[in-house]
C-alpha cells in the first residue's frame, strides 16, 4: 500500500485548508450540482461564461480533502480560459486519473503543463479516491452544458 504522503501532498492540504474561489454566483451564471453517492460529498459549480470564455467560477459544497482541493485547483486552472481549452483540460485531468472517455480515441494534447494539478497524480494509487478527485470536474462539464 502506498504511503499517505503520496496522497496528501502539501499543496493538496493547502488547497483544502485555503480553498480558492469559494462562493456562489447569481444567475444568469450557470450552475451545476454533483453528488458522490459513495461518500455523500456534494459540490456546486457556478460559472459565468461570455464569448466562449469562463470569466468567473465559484465553488460551493462540502467534501473530503481530495474533492475539495481538486475543486479548488480546478477553479484556479479554468478561470479565464476558453471552453475549448477547458474541455481539453478536463480530458487531460481525467486521463491522469486513468479515466478514459469510451468511444473517444482522438489524441490528447499534452502541450500545456497541468501545474498544481499534477499534485493530484498520487490519487491514482488510491482508486476509491479517484471519484473524489473528479467530482468537481464532472460537475464543471455539467455546468458548461447548462451555460
Amino acid at each position, binding site marked *: 500500500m502506498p504511503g499517505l504522503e503520496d496522497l496528501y501532498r502539501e499543496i493538496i492540504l493547502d488547497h483544502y485548508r485555503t480553498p480558492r474561489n469559494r462562493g456562489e454566483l447569481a444567475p444568469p451564471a450557470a450552475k451545476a450540482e454533483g453528488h458522490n*453517492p459513495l461518500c455523500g460529498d456534494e459540490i456546486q459549480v457556478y460559472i459565468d461564461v461570455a464569448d466562449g470564455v469562463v470569466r468567473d467560477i465559484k465553488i460551493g459544497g462540502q467534501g473530503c480533502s481530495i474533492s475539495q482541493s481538486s475543486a479548488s485547483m480546478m477553479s484556479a486552472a479554468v478561470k479565464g480560459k476558453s471552453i475549448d481549452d477547458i474541455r481539453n483540460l478536463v480530458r487531460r485531468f481525467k486521463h491522469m486519473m486513468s479515466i478514459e472517455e469510451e468511444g473517444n480515441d482522438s489524441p490528447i494534447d499534452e502541450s500545456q503543463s497541468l501545474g498544481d494539478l499534477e499534485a493530484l497524480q498520487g490519487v491514482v494509487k488510491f482508486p*476509491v479516491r479517484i471519484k473524489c478527485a473528479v467530482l468537481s470536474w464532472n460537475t464543471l462539464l455539467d455546468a458548461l452544458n447548462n451555460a
Partner: protein
Amino acid sequence: MSFDVALIKKDFPLLQRVINNKPLVYLDSANTSQKPRQVIDAMSHFMETSYAPINRSAYQLAAESTDAFEHARGLCRTFINAPRTNEIIFTKNATEALNLVAHSWGGANLHRGDVVVLTQMEHHANIVPWHMLAASHGIELRWVPLTDDGQLDLTNLDSLLKGAKAFSFTAMSNVLGTITPVQQLCAAAHAAGAIAIVDGCQYVPHNVTDVVAWGADFLTFSSHKMCGPSGIGVLWGREELLNAMPPFLGGGNMIADVRLDGFTCAELPAKFEAGTPPITEVIGLGAAISYLTAIGMSNIRQHEKETVTYALSALNERYGNDITIHGPSDPEVRGATLSFKFKDVHPHDLSQVLDQSNICVRAGHHCAKPLMRLLGANATARASFYLYNSLDDVDALVNALEGAGDLFSL
C-alpha cells in the same frame, strides 16, 4: 485447446459422487448446472481473503472487493459482446431480469391495448410478468405458434408483430431444445417498430453470444445454468433504453440522493441494483465465465451438437415407436436438451426408475405449461446434456430406459 470431456468432468466434484456403487449421471443441466472446482474455489477464496462491501466503503479491502466485482461485470460484457460495461445489470436470476424489463420498461412504455408478442414455447418467467402487465396495464399478448417439429412457425410473424411494442422470446427452448433464429426475430421486431427482448437462459450457457450481431435490445440469463453459482442473474440492455427507464427496486446504491420528499436515481448500472448485491456470487459468475471461455463456447456448442446427434439416433434406433422425442430432429437448430415420451410411462415414474440407476432427468412441465398443452401432455421427461456429459452418459440413459417399459405397461 482440444475438448476433452473426461478431463472436464474431473473439474466437477459433484459428478464424482457415487451412490449405491453407481456413478452419478447428471442430465438436468437445463434446470441448473453443476459447478466446477474453479468456481467453488473462487467463491471460497474470495470469502476467505477479500470479502468486503461493494461501492460503499473506502478502505483497501473494500476497494479490492469492488474491483473484483466490477471486473466480473467486465467479463459479462465481453462474454455477450455488449457495447458497454454499464449496460450489465446484476439481478438475482433471469426471472428478476425479465420482471425488471416488463415492469420498468413495460410499465413506462405500454398502455391499454398495446401489444406484446411472445412465443408458445416460452418459459413461465417470460410469460407471467407479461400477464401481470396485462392485468395492470391492459396490454394484449399475442403468441407465435409452433410447427409440428417444435420450431417457431414464422409464417404470420409480420402480421403478429404489426403494431406490437415488444417481442420477447427465448433463444433456445428449455423443453424442446429448439434454437430460434434470434437475429431474424430481432430484425422482424425492429421492422415492426417493436423492441426485441431475448431470454438467453438456455442459449448463453451453450453457445457463443453476440448481442450486437443479433441486434437485440435486452438479453437475460442466469449464472446457475452456466457453471456459475445460484443467486445471480444478468440483464443486459441498450444504454439508451436503460437510461430512459424508471427504477425497479428502490433502496441503497440505486440513488443519487434521498430526501424526505423524494429521491433521484443513480447512474447505470447502480440505478437497477438496489441493496447489497450478491457479491460472492458475482465473483463466482466471473470465474464461471473465465472457465467457459477457456474451454471455448464454440467447442462447447460443437460437443453438445455431437452429443445430441448421438443421443437422437441411439434412442430412436433402440426404441423406435416406443419413444417420441419432441422438438427438431436437425441438430443444427437444436441444443442438447431432449424432452421425450416413452411408451405410456408417466414421466414421473420414468424419472423414478432412471433415478434407481442414478440418472437424473427432470419430469414435469418445465415451467412451460402453455407448451405442455400444445404437446398434449401434463409433463414430459427431459434429459439435458452439458459440456461435462460424455457419450457414456447417453448410453446410460438409453440402457436404463429398458426397465421402465415393463413395469408400467398398461
